[in-house]
């Protein structure tokens, strides 16, 4: 933690912003510069940054964060249906509603810590998921998912006199349609703002307090501090990030389904954060982008493309290799995900950021700092 001066933070922030905004250019060689995928990078980057504020800073492992993502999506779609197709109100409402929801759940869950906290959050998320599927169908539209329809009220749009005609309207920001590249830039700006806030939080006394809770909560209480308000705030903030991510999902594709709240979705954001490096600033964004990138690449393979790829091999060997590789791609992408998950937790608990630090340490011929990160998946912030 030697580079915590204000200047280096600004450099980090500006470099980050530049890297995000130029994504369409430098991602071209990877074949990942199309808007749909880049939107996903940005959206799940926001989600992971928010999750990291809770898990990375305080060490509280929430297994139900997808619930806030889902709530954000539903709120955004309802805003599109009832008020206006403009995305700004949708985003604001989503953040507020997800934050309120997070406060409610956090208020109860944070009474316990450790594995109990994980299971409580998991229980709440499963509860929301089950309710969204069954009783709340009037709000969530059950299995079909919440969609726009021609008969929607859209009070504000109607007041201004924007008529949608006979086709479904698309989301827009004061007339700019939020699909394709403009949609990506909207998400990118959200990501950059989110990153900036996370940076400020990490460096603030509040962030120090959260890290103090992680390293020794008992001692914090003995010094006369009530840690609960800090934890609740961290939980609410990270819930708001998840709500923002959920609303962005709805902005790029105005549709919300209950499966976004399932606990496997919560597991995915945990994985993103761990893979990139929990507790670091850049790590979660990196992890999110990597996972979405590989998901996109790997699940596109099928037997035909594989056979083409390994055409050069002798026939018998080709069959064997294709058989083996097909385990891991296409439908089997989740297997790769699981393996990646285990390998990261076992060998590189600090994630990619720790790996880079180790490699960097090799070159500068300095011993890499044996921080607490070697024993825990939650590394120190860089």
């Amino acid at each position, binding site marked *: 933690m030697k580079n915590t001066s204000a200047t280096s933070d600004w450099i980090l922030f500006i470099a980050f912003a530049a890297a995000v905004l130029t994504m369409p250019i430098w991602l071209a060689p990877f074949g990942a510069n199309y808007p749909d995928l880049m939107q996903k990078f940005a959206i799940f980057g926001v989600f992971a940054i928010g999750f990291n504020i809770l898990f990375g800073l305080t*060490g509280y*492992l929430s*297994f139900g964060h997808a619930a806030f993502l889902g709530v954000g999506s539903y709120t955004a779609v309802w805003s599109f249906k009832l008020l206006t197709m403009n995305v700004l109100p949708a985003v604001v409402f989503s953040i507020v509603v997800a934050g309120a929801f997070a406060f409610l759940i956090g208020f*109860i869950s944070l*009474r*316990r*810590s*450790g*594995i*109990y906290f*994980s*299971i*409580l959050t*998991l*229980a*709440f998320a*499963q*509860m929301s998921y*089950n*309710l969204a*599927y*069954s*009783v*709340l169908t009037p709000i969530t539209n059950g299995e079909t998912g919440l969609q726009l329809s021609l008969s929607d009220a859209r009070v504000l749009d109607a007041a201004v006199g924007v008529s949608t005609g006979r086709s479904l309207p698309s989301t827009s920001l004061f007339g700019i349609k939020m699909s394709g590249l403009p949609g990506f830039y909207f998400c990118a700006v959200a990501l950059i703002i989110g990153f900036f806030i996370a940076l400020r939080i990490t460096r603030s006394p509040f962030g120090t307090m959260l890290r103090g809770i992680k390293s020794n909560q008992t001692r914090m209480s003995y010094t006369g501090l009530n840690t609960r308000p800090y934890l609740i705030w961290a939980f609410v903030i990270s819930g708001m990030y998840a709500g923002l991510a959920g609303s962005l999902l709805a902005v790029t594709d105005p549709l919300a389904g209950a499966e976004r709240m399932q*606990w*496997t979705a919560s*597991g995915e954001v*945990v994985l993103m954060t*761990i893979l990139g490096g929990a507790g670091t600033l850049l790590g979660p964004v990196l992890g999110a982008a990597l996972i979405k990138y590989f998901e996109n690449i790997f699940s596109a393979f099928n037997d035909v493309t594989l056979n083409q790829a390994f055409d050069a091999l002798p026939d018998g060997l080709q069959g064997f290799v294709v058989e083996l590789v097909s*385990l891991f791609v296409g*439908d*089997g992408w*989740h*297997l790769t*995900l*699981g*393996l*990646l*998950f*285990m390998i990261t*937790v*076992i060998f590189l*608990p600090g994630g990619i950021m720790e790996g880079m630090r180790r490699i960097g340490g090799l070159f500068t011929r300095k011993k890499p700092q044996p921080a607490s990160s070697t*024993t*825990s*998946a*939650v590394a120190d912030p860089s």
Partner: protein
Amino acid sequence: MDALILQLLNGLDKGGAYALIALGLTLVFGTLGVVNFAHGAIFMIGAFCAVTLRKLLTISTQVRDESITLFEAYKEVPILEAKFPVVGSIIVHFSVPLAILAAIPVMLALGLLMERGLIRHFYKRPHADQILVTFGLAIICQEIIRHYFGANPIPQAAPAVVAGSANIGAFLGLGDNVVYPWWRLIYLLFSFIVIAAVFAFLQFTTFGMVVRAGMQDREMVGLLGIDIQRRFTIVFGMAAVVAGLAGVMYTPILPPDYHMGMDFLVLSFVVVVVGGMGSLGGAVLAGFLLGILQSFASMNEIKSVLPGIDQIIIYLVAVVVLLVRPRGLMGRKGVMED
């Protein structure tokens, strides 16, 4: 009244599965101090032991179909039945009970392998890491199963002898309205037997005594010159066997598919927490309790008053219990108090 009895049986049935899985989870947690998110996957693999055995037993051959005389017709008949008409067909019909015998060594080996290969490196790591690594393992197990068996549920038949329903109404003198599938009754009995066996093993054998002593004070047992680690490894294997058997026996009730483990895992964890981390009796009690609560909540009379309650009752109970009695119903002092 009739409906109440049926729901009670339903609940006990579900509770049996929860209790068996939760028992294993608690055993592992109490001995090794490891939070095992892969336990649901073990349950699922147990179920697929039954599927595999049935597949092996019914490898078929082409046999002349005698019933069609106009032309030469062939039908597929399991080799076993073709070679040994009587014994073979009995074996095929009893594939699920037979799978129990097959599953015990398989699950034991799997459990030992898992413990030696992975879990033991995680004793000293934080619980968060244990959760994460076993979560990854669970994903891997379920994806491998999906690759080989497909994503669709594979129905398994119970032996024909017990395929029907038992008229327990007549047995209890309540009229003929109360009928209940035989296999579910057998499952209930089976879960009682397994639970009793595990408790007896821990209570009445020297091995069990050492394990219990190790759960109380691991260091002291070690100082007495007992290799407690090895016994705990065996306990992990035992937990895997219990979960696996629960899976095997559950196949005729619920056609197994690759994510059944995850579904049961979340609920079983809730069961363990409600019962009290590290308390075996608590796990069993909470398992049956939550099972019964869930099945009563899914009665129409209750659903019409509180819509959706059947979906969330278990989680709701867990939340209330955790907040009112943080240690769970029968939690021990000093286990996971933070």
